């Protein structure tokens, strides 16, 4: 029983081996001759071989014959004998290129000499029996090694099998190569994916370890592998990797040194600026932010005031905001302005003050031009000029000629008299508020200097009254008050353009404060008799102007002006031209 089972198992095994063979056989290879297989190396020729089996009496040549036939539809169904029996081994039939048809089914039969016995038969197509030769010329190249010097990478290269080299070159044969490697002594092979390249990268090989590498090939799209090539033995010692590591350390040190030098060098501001340019700060158009840093507030404020946008913010509709010029801070500029004022005055008219008067224009609301602190307003200069001119009227040294001119200019100007109540420290002369509206109206008709804030405000001018004769000739009794003043007043009276004493908003009379009145005396000028004054009007003679352009008033001696002044001014009769005033001042 056991023997039968063993035989049965053996039969199955043999049958299985036979079925896995290169070509199917129908005969038991132990008894009759059989075909061992047909093989093609480059798909251009093939050979078939057979074995006599146990028929030892068939050792003579031609005891066995091989026939073939094409089994396609177009070829004739005709058996053909082997085109070429090999001479060395008479058990092999070779089909050359002429007799090799690819993609054509072959039927091969192994017959006896008499052809009456078919020992074996196979069917195939040539491309299915292609078993290429193994690749040759295995070689390896060191690729890299890890930092730990434990693992390394290599590249293995080879050549295609010589028997198929041409076919591979022309594209007739497409081969794929499979690489396998293992540690020497290991039983398992590491199999890498097959591809058409004749080189393979192998990563992760241990150093100081023996490795065995082999390659085999097959036709692409088919399963018939070649035999393995001769194994390649490699061993990469760890010492070989020290050299590149040392070089790596050196390079790393050099790199650090270079970086350190760069850091030191870049600390210099110039290079820092080149590599890291400073981010520009916010800029206001027209304003340099360095002004803030340097603290040049004067330039900044000038820019802010002159800037059209900012100006509108400064000068809003708040009419109750007054702008006062403080000349305390800028004495130098005032002197310069005065110099220019005199220059302008001389250039405008030599002796005729009408030009001076006519040049005064009040073409604006009266605020803008006078509100600019830093700009030397030519109108304000003219105002100052007028002040000076008025002051010069009081100069007893004035020439009669100028006095006459002045008389002409002032001929149409009504005489205004006001009682000076007080002269403030700032140089303002406070008059009693009498007939201010009338005076204002009259003055506004004929004389409207630009220094006036509005036309509504009263104006009071400084005038030196001379003889009554002149007064009578020149003055026009526009109002009773004036005539009354003329008749009763024989001393000089001074009137200054003043602010409204009633408390109206002060105007930015920039230049009006220039000729400061010396507060030595407090002359009081009484108004017309219509004013309700208890005491009789008092008049103070203006001696002149001091170098600071302030009016020098004589001490309070009513009705007793200094004879010298009277003498000096008989011809003037109380009227001084602006030229005289200028001559008095300078």
């Amino acid at each position, binding site marked *: 029983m056991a023997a039968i089972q063993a035989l049965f198992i053996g039969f199955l095994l043999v049958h299985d081996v036979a079925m896995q063979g290169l070509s199917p056989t129908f005969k038991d290879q132990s008894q009759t001759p059989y075909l061992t297989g047909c093989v093609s190396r480059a798909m251009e020729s093939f050979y078939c071989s057979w074995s006599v089996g146990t028929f030892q009496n068939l050792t003579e040549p031609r005891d066995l014959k091989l026939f073939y036939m094409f089994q396609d539809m177009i070829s004739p169904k005709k058996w053909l004998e082997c085109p070429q029996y090999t001479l060395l081994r008479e058990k092999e039939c070779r089909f050359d290129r*002429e007799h090799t048809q*690819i993609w054509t089914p072959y039927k091969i039969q192994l017959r006896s000499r008499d052809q009456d016995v078919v020992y074996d038969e196979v069917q195939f197509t040539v491309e299915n029996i292609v078993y290429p030769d193994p690749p040759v010329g295995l070689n390896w190249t060191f690729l890299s090694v890890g930092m730990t010097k434990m693992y390394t990478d290599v590249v293995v290269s080879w050549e295609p099998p010589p028997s198929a080299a041409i076919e591979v070159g022309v594209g007739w044969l497409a081969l794929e190569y499979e690489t396998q490697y293992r540690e020497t002594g290991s039983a398992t092979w590491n199999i890498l994916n097959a591809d058409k390249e004749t080189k393979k990268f192998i990563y992760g090989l241990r150093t100081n370890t023996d490795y065995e590498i082999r390659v085999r090939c097959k036709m692409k799209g088919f399963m018939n592998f070649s035999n393995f090539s001769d194994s390649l033995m490699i061993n990469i010692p760890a010492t070989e990797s020290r050299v590149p590591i040392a070089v790596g350390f050196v390079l790393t040190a050099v790199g650090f040194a270079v970086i350190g030098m760069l850091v030191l060098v870049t600390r210099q501001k110039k290079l820092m600026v080149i590599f890291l340019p400073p981010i520009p700060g916010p800029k206001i158009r027209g304003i340099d932010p360095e002004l803030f840093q340097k603290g040049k507030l004067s330039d900044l404020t000038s820019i802010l005031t002159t800037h059209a946008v900012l100006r509108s913010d400064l000068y809003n509709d708040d009419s109750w905001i007054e702008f006062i010029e403080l000349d305390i801070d800028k004495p130098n500029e005032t002197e310069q302005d005065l110099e220019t004022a005199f220059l302008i005055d001389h250039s405008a008219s030599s002796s005729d003050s009408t030009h001076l008067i006519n040049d005064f224009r009040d073409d604006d609301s009266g605020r803008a031009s006078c509100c600019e602190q830093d700009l030397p307003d030519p109108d304000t200069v003219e105002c100052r000029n007028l002040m000076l001119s008025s002051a010069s009227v009081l100069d007893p040294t004035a020439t009669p000629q100028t006095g006459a001119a002045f008389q002409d200019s002032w001929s149409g100007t009504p005489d205004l008299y006001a009682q000076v109540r007080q002269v403030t420290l700032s140089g303002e002369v406070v008059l009693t508020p009498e007939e201010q509206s009338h005076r204002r109206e009259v003055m506004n008709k004929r004389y409207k200097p630009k220094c006036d804030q509005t036309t509504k405000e009263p104006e009071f001018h400084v005038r030196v009254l001379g003889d009554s004769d002149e007064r009578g000739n020149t003055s026009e009794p526009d109002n009773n008050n004036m005539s009354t003043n003329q008749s009763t007043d024989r001393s000089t009276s001074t009137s200054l353009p003043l602010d409204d004493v009633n408390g109206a908003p002060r105007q930015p009379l920039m230049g009006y404060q220039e000729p400061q009145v010396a507060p030595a005396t407090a002359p009081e000028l009484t108004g017309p008799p219509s004013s309700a004054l208890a005491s009789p009007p008092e008049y103070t003679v203006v001696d002149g102007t001091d170098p600071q352009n302030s009016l020098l008033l004589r001490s309070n001696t009513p009705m007793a002006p200094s004879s010298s002044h009277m003498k000096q001014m008989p011809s003037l009769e109380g009227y001084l031209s602006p030229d005289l005033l200028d001559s008095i001042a300078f």
Partner: protein
Amino acid sequence: MAKVCLLLPVLLVLSSMGHVELSEHQRLYRHAADRMKSLHLMAVNMISDFEESLPEDRRAPSKIFLLSHCISDSIPAPSHKDETQRSSVLRLLRTSFRLIETWEYPSQAFSGAFLNSLGPNVITEKLNDLKMGVNLLIGDFLNGQPDMEGNDSLPLPFEDFYLYLEDNDLSKSYRLMACFRKDMHRIETFIRMASCRRSADSNCTL
């Protein structure tokens, strides 16, 4: 002399254009070769999957009915290596084109049973795409010249060829797949050789 100076830039441009043209048809060949490789692998996988699906006792006989009576046998095509190498590029391309044509209809039988994962009519679509590519290669080779050998008016093989063979279902399926794989390999070889011939590699002209 002036004419030579004028011709020099023209020649340079033409030579550069020639290089550009070569790379263009190389690109076309590369595309066709890639598609062909894909089809061939699909055919191989199809047969191997089919064989694995068979029971053990039926696998051996299937190998016997190999590649006899394929529909493409009627199409004249080079079958020897030397004959193939002697054939012109145009003949190789035209043969490939006709072989693809013979499989347009029978390839529809592949959808469903054997290529469930890929979807219906995948092979047919790939064949159509490849046919278009080979047509482009033929046009590129002719370069505007009229096709003298084309339009032979040879009738296509009988479309229902495989249906009328006296095969059982197993043999019918196996024959279809085996013939398909054979033809795919043949077309791939023809295109590969034509590409090598068109390239500047001197080895291909051996």
